[in-house]
């Protein structure tokens, strides 16, 4: 005996309950698009915040790890020998990892932008520079370097980079907070849009809510239907947005080689992991919004 019952294309044995909510609804496409765009922007901002934070830490690291010494030769010695003597002196100071006299060409290259191409640097008494790399664990102070140079009778000035460190750190902190603020604003906007669109979507399905309500469905059952549906939708949109941001981040990383697109804003591969929570966060916001909206709608019916 055939197990097929009914008629037409309906096969009773193969029948499975359809979801109470429509699988697809054209009204949802706008929601998916907007959430995807906002998630994309939020992820990009997160990547920017991470990169700027890394850049600021890099600048601080460089400034605290290096000093430059300007050496003026005395009457009885050449600039090169004065620089060599200063480098030798500094290398022996505790807290100095390396001290190296820079060639004349490098010193000239440093001051050339200030004098212009027309100037003949060969006629100028260009001071020699000594680059000092400090010990990371216990760096020497500018004062101890100055004392060591004076003790050897060298006419030299220690250029302490940390003088600018506070400004750079303050600038970096501002950039970090601004980035974080933008990220939070975009995230809040995304959450608001998800909540608003969820409410609109749910209102558009009011007839389903009413029918289920009047047929004896519990409030939590109805709310869960919408919660799951909108969370899935937002997660999908969040995934698209996050993937887009990750692709762009990867392009920046590839475009800039090891330092990212630019050393000013270095992007690391590991930064791309920051987009991972985005779909989850979007789903969470949508779930909460859908639950609250559904509960409110059901309260109106009761």
């Amino acid at each position, binding site marked *: 005996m055939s197990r097929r*019952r*009914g*008629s*037409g*294309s*309906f096969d*009773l044995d193969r*029948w*499975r*309950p*359809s979801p*109470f*909510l*429509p*699988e697809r609804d054209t009204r949802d496409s706008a929601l998916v698009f907007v959430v995807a765009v906002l998630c994309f922007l939020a992820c990009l901002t997160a990547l920017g915040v991470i990169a700027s934070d890394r850049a600021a830490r890099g600048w601080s690291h460089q400034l605290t790890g290096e000093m430059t010494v300007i050496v003026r030769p005395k009457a009885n010695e050449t600039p090169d020998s004065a620089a060599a003597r200063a480098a030798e002196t500094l290398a022996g100071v505790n807290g100095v990892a390396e001290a190296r006299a820079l060639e004349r060409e490098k010193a000239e290259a440093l001051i050339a932008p200030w004098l212009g191409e027309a100037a003949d640097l060969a006629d100028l008494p260009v001071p020699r520079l000594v680059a000092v790399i400090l010990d990371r664990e216990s760096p020497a102070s500018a004062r101890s370097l100055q004392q060591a140079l004076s003790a050897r009778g060298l006419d030299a000035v220690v250029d302490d980079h940390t003088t600018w460190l506070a400004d750079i750190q303050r600038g970096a902190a501002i950039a970090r907070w601004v980035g974080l603020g933008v990220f939070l604003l975009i995230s809040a906007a995304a959450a608001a849009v998800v909540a608003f669109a969820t409410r609109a979507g749910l209102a558009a399905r009011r*007839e*389903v809510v*009413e*029918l*289920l*309500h*009047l*047929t*004896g*469905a*519990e*409030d939590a*059952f109805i709310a869960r239907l919408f919660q799951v549906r909108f969370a899935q939708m937002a997660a999908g949109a969040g995934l698209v947005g996050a993937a887009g941001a990750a692709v762009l981040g990867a392009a920046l990383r590839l475009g800039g080689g090891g330092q990212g697109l630019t050393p000013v804003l270095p992007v690391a591969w590991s930064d791309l992991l920051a987009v991972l929570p985005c779909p989850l966060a979007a789903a969470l916001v949508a779930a909460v919004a859908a639950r609250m909206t559904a509960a409110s709608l059901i309260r109106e*019916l*009761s």
Partner: protein
Amino acid sequence: MSRNPNAAETADAWDAVVRFDDVSMRYGREPETLRDLTFSLPQGSFHFVTGPSGAGKTSLLKLIYLAAQPSKGLLHLFGQDVAQTPAQVRPFLRRRIGVVFQEFRLLDHLSAFDNAAVPLRIAGQKPDSYRQDVAELLTWVGLKDRMHALPPTLAGGEKQRLAIARAVVGRPDILLADEPTGNVDHEMGLRILRLFLELNRLGTTVLIATHDQDLVARSGMPVLHLEDGRLVHMGPIPAGARA
């Protein structure tokens, strides 16, 4: 036929499945749609609600299926004061009530079969336990060949029969129907009446709002006659009104 057509007049009101005590109802700030209704429906009774358009028939049904609340008076369902019933209990009261809505309220994205099965799914039944019953019921109401069809593709009469199937599929304790024969031909109207009578014979309390005097007369069941929101007659249909 009903076990007790005139049960409403003879049963102890406190044993009634539906009891109205001086109940009035209004929508928002509008004038009262229903006024000072007092009556009770014992378990297993069968009544029609009659009256001209705007008399309050649909509103009366809404109060019973808990889609509206009295603005005054006490409404008891299954012995419980509805106003005092916790919100979390109300869904379980609604599951005991089958409703044929005047506007059908079918879910357009679900097949006829899925629509008919909605109350059983909500009640938590497994598909294997009810698929045969749903199929047989749909066959009985003449939708055997339309089980897979979506409501927008159904004719008015087919929608009405589907709405009836959905209302009765869970063997409710109370069956409420709002103009259930409004879109079907005479023969199908009589079949639907027989279905309701059969359910009533099995113990379901039936309340049908209708303009169809012929249906009322053929059934021989008592009526609640409303006019301008007031209950003006309860009991057997007046002799002059019989077909």
